[in-house]
């Protein structure tokens, strides 16, 4: 009951501080985006000058869109993130289920090995992964961009922890009813792990949407390359950066993610809170 003892003025102060902090953080987050929007819809001359009535233009978007085959890159990126997420959810649910509910020899060692994956920077494996893709004959395919990420250690770990929180009673009740192992996973565990899966899906999609160096290295043609490779042609260090074009291109390529996040914001935040990822 101590909260009742706090005088109202102090509560107000707390609240005010909280609001100021939240707004400050939100502004810091929003500023680059606001700059991007401002620069993208004005002619290049207003890149570093703020005039409220500067002429508006969509020309930057047109020029950016025409500078690279972005339509094809969009298709590739969407195919890529969908493929990776689907494969990750299937493979990692199965693995996590085994780690959470089965007993088998070497289980802890194997799980430790999975955790080791979390500590290895993917960039270290560029050459090894390239050689593997080469021996599989997969160089310059969308499958090759995704394959190294299918068995995600992070997803296995996350789902195993979630599956472990599922009450044994539910598990046993389903088994008494004659449910098979796959049925148990599908009907009991997966529905209960949905918030975790949604949260992981967001992390996975945004990571692979933005991934650059591995796709650049393993692909060579327009048919396989993702958006980030298209975006990189605007990083023109030798000739001075045209901010209006680069911001327009950035908005084009990140628009689906931004819009998706704004639309499903409530669900994302809730699932993050439930899954406990930050």
């Amino acid at each position, binding site marked *: 009951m101590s909260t009742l003892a706090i005088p109202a003025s102090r509560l107000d102060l707390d609240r005010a501080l909280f609001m100021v902090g939240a707004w400050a953080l939100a502004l810091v987050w929003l500023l680059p985006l606001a700059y991007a929007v401002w620069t993208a819809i004005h002619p290049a001359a207003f890149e570093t000058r703020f005039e409220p009535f500067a002429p508006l233009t969509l020309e930057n978007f047109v020029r950016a869109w025409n500078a690279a085959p972005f339509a094809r890159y969009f298709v590739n990126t969407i195919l890529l993130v969908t493929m990776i997420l689907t494969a990750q959810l299937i493979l990692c649910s199965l693995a996590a289920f085994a780690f959470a509910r089965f007993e088998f020899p070497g289980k802890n060692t194997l799980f430790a090995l999975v955790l080791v994956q979390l500590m290895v920077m993917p960039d270290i494996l560029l050459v090894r992964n390239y050689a593997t893709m080469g021996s599989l004959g997969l160089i310059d395919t969308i499958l090759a961009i995704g394959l190294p990420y299918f068995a995600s250690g992070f997803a296995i770990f996350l789902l195993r922890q979630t599956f472990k929180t599922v009450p044994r009673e539910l598990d046993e009740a389903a088994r008494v009813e004659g449910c098979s192992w796959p049925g148990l996973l599908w009907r009991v565990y997966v529905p209960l792990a949905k918030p975790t899966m949604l949260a992981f899906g967001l992390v996975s999609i945004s990571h692979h949407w933005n991934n650059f*160096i591995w796709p650049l290295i393993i692909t*060579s043609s327009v048919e396989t390359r993702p958006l980030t*490779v298209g975006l990189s*042609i605007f990083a*023109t*260090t030798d000739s001075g*950066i045209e*901010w209006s*074009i680069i911001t327009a291109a950035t908005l084009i390529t990140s628009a689906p993610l931004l819009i998706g996040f704004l639309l499903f914001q409530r669900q994302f935040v809730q699932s993050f809170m439930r899954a406990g990822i930050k």
Partner: protein
Amino acid sequence: MKHALKGFLASTTVLAAMSQAAWAVDLEFYFPVAVGGSAAETIEGLTEAYMAENPDVSIEAIYTGSYADTTTRAITASRGGNPPQLAILLSVDMFTMIDEDLVLPWDDFLTEEEMEDWVGGFYPAFMRNSQTGGQTWGIPFQRSTPVLYWNKEAFAAAGLDPETPPATWQEMVEFGEALTIRDDSGTVTQWGVRIPSSGFPSWLFTGLVASAGQDGLANDAGTEVYFDTPEVIGALEYLVALANEHEVMEPGILDWGATPRAFMDGNAAMVWTTTGNLTNIRTNAPFDFGVGMLPANERPGAPTGGGNFYLFQGSSDEQLAAAVDFVQWATAPEQAAEWSIATGYVAPRADTWESERMQAYAQEVPGALVAREQLAHAVPELSTFEGPRITQIINDAIAAAIVGDMTPAEAMADAQDAADAILAVYR
């Protein structure tokens, strides 16, 4: 699934066999893009034109990001057993590529006559970053050099002759003082000069070092650096004094990428940046501007920069012969002129400048000629073994002196020690 995969593999094998029957030689060629405009399209256009003339050669020109990304990809693909035949990488990556044992010297694939006429036809300033140990490792292609751009309107407003850029360090300070404009509250609305210090600080700094009278920052073997000489320290003291003592340059670290914009917005009346910016500034500057050589001190001087063609190990003799032929074609006057005009890079051969197209271009854009004239005074860009680490060391030292953490002499002495420790094993 398995069937589908098998079918897919089979069909690609058939395709590969078919393409081999149709094309005698397949080449892969990695290129970075570091300039705006349609550089990628120009390169693809060039390879297509070459294939039209040589139907037995098929060249796949693959855009591979920035210079750093291209180097990463070339090393990864070579290690992964799938090297390209050709790649354009930074000329200063020569020692790294030799050290990694991934590239071949061009000498082995050229006759004596070609060595003399073709390799000998490039400006010597560009070849200094392309040859070492008596062998040629790079063929200059997208090369640049820094120049001084000045705002003629601002010069006229400050009572200076709008047609004359500063010729010496002393003049740059004097002009800068006349050009720096403060409003009533003392805030600067126009700075005299801007030498950017992020991005490639060591590159522009080499320009100061060259004018101070030192022939670059490293020896030609890539095993020694000269960071703590009086010339280098004097150059750094001058750079620091521009902001602190003379107050003609904005203090702090000045961004490379924002420099053309600062010039075009009238924030700085003189800027140092690459010739690669010429097209951008010509199209977007709302005022008349001039392009001049970097001001001299002991002597005029500037570094060269940019990318070379490299030839990779692990290819068949036919592929290498075709690759050499393609590069000879691409650097011939007509193609080199097209490339230079489209991108703003300096054409690296005298015969290109003599071609009609280039003459017409030089007439239209006299600024383009300044870069070529400056080549007579050019020194090599910093290039050593462990290049990226050594460059980082001097960049950090320059930054430390600019922000005032260390005096120029201290910063450079530290940098020399750190670089010596790394390079000792190569001596």
